[in-house]
């Protein structure tokens, strides 16, 4: 009886675990990282989730963040290497739910507010690279990225990262 109950709990648990979010193992970017000064082939260490970073990171602090690209219908800035990422703990709609834009986290808008950061990929002068992040890094919506750079905070609590290194850790299906 206990075995049956345990099995059922495991089964239900696994269904819930896979229902909302699905992540996949690391994937190779479509862009060649050997010729790209911003894209790295090995994962930077010490990455912290966006939500934690918003609570702990101070202005001008070097930090490594991890998150899914998303937070709105259009998370990328056209013509500039900039985008928003959301803490991996925030669930987005699964493929089975039929949502055409799961990266906008439409069901978790309140959660997103406290778990979002803006990433600006900058050159050695600190200027945002004038090329779409999709082309520059080979990333897309819901890509799981690890980004390293210098944090900018403002009085409203917004977190922006001037990123110099980006690692593509995975891509949600």
């Amino acid at each position, binding site marked *: 009886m206990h075995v049956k109950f345990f099995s059922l709990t495991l089964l239900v648990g696994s269904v819930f675990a896979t229902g909302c979010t699905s992540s996949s193992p690391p994937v190779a970017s479509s862009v060649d990282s050997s010729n790209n000064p911003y894209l790295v082939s090995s994962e930077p260490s010490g990455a912290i989730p966006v939500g934690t970073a918003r609570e702990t990171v101070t202005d001008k602090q070097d930090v490594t963040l991890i998150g899914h690209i998303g*937070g*709105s*219908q*259009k998370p990328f*800035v*056209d*013509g*500039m290497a*900039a*985008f*928003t990422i959301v803490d991996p703990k925030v669930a987005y709609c699964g493929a089975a739910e039929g949502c055409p834009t799961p990266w906008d986290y439409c069901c978790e*808008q309140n959660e997103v*507010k406290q778990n*979002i950061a*803006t990433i*600006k990929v900058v050159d050695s002068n600190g200027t*945002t690279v*004038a090329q779409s992040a999709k082309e520059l890094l080979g990333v897309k919506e819901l890509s799981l990225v690890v980004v390293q750079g210098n944090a900018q905070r*403002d009085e*409203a*609590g*917004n977190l*922006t990262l001037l990123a110099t290194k980006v690692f593509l850790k995975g891509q949600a299906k």
Partner: protein
Amino acid sequence: MFRSRLLPWDYAVRNLMRRPTRTVLTLGALAVVVLLILVVVGFIRGLESSLAVSGDSHAVLVYSVTAEDNIENSAIAARTPALLTASLPGIQKRYGVSYVSPELYLGTRVKTSETVLSGLGLVRGVTPVAPMVRRGVRLLAGNWPKPGEVIVGRLAVSKLGCESNSLSVGSQIEFENRRWRISGTFAAGGGSFESEIWCQLPDLQQVLKRQDLSLVALILKPGFNPAEVNLFCKQRTDLELQSIAETEYYASLQKHYKPMRLLAWFVVLLVSGAGIFAGLNVMYGAVAGRVRELATLQAIGYRRRAILVSLVQEGMLLSATGALIAAAIAVPAVNGVAVRFTMGAFVLRIDTVALLFGGGIGLLLGILGAIPPAIKVLRGPVAQSLKAI
């Protein structure tokens, strides 16, 4: 030498005069077909032009990220214009005034003094900076609105479905439980603003008991990248803003109305098809009664090709005349007629493209209507055709 000659041009013309009733009826049918085509193409051209001229290539709209693609649903903080002005160095300035227009926009019931029922109107609360940003807007009559006053676009009459004199300067309208005096009328170069009613922003905020805005429209200096505005919106996640170039916004509306445009083109196709079948029917009748005449022409030495060309000339002459009559009716009677639609109103445009299309279809009707019956008649043996009744 004789065998290679075509029939004289006036032979085709005289033939049309031989049966005046039939010719006039055919001409009428062709003119109606081309007129219908002109009306539908004029509708498509009007809709496209209205959306195309509504966007300014230097203007950027900033609105709520939760509004998705519908600016009407947007609500943003009242401090947004000040934040944008302070944060974006690329905003155009003149004599110290930034080209930043805060606006409150809504669709609401508007009642004119002469109507019992109210129509759905589009009201925009603006500041005196609005004409600097909405550069196509021109006052046609009257003055810029003072408190308690509005200016109305020249197509607002169509949008509200009321008499034109009820929106004249000095008249009164009512919306949001308040009466407003019309202080002026304006045009916007055929853009979508022409179907709107504009009043002072504080006035509208007061009657709506709202302090927020729908959007901020701004003009960037030449060479400044609109992506910088988008980047600002992404960085200020607390404000929940998004931006879009105004031309891009209206291009997205064009996509929104694509099914309607496709349907209109389908109607053009159907009307053209019906016109071709009507033309075929008429020409079959006309040619069938002339079997002996056409056989006689062959007997005296005219080649089938020459007779075919003459019949096509007849058809084209008739259809070209029909197209000209249709154009002569459409340009004064249809061009400029206002049509109401969800976003406001636009005018039917019988422009060069519409005329070219209508004329082309008209000529095609003449050619396609004449060739099959002519081939059928000319294919028969001359000796047998000479005895035809």
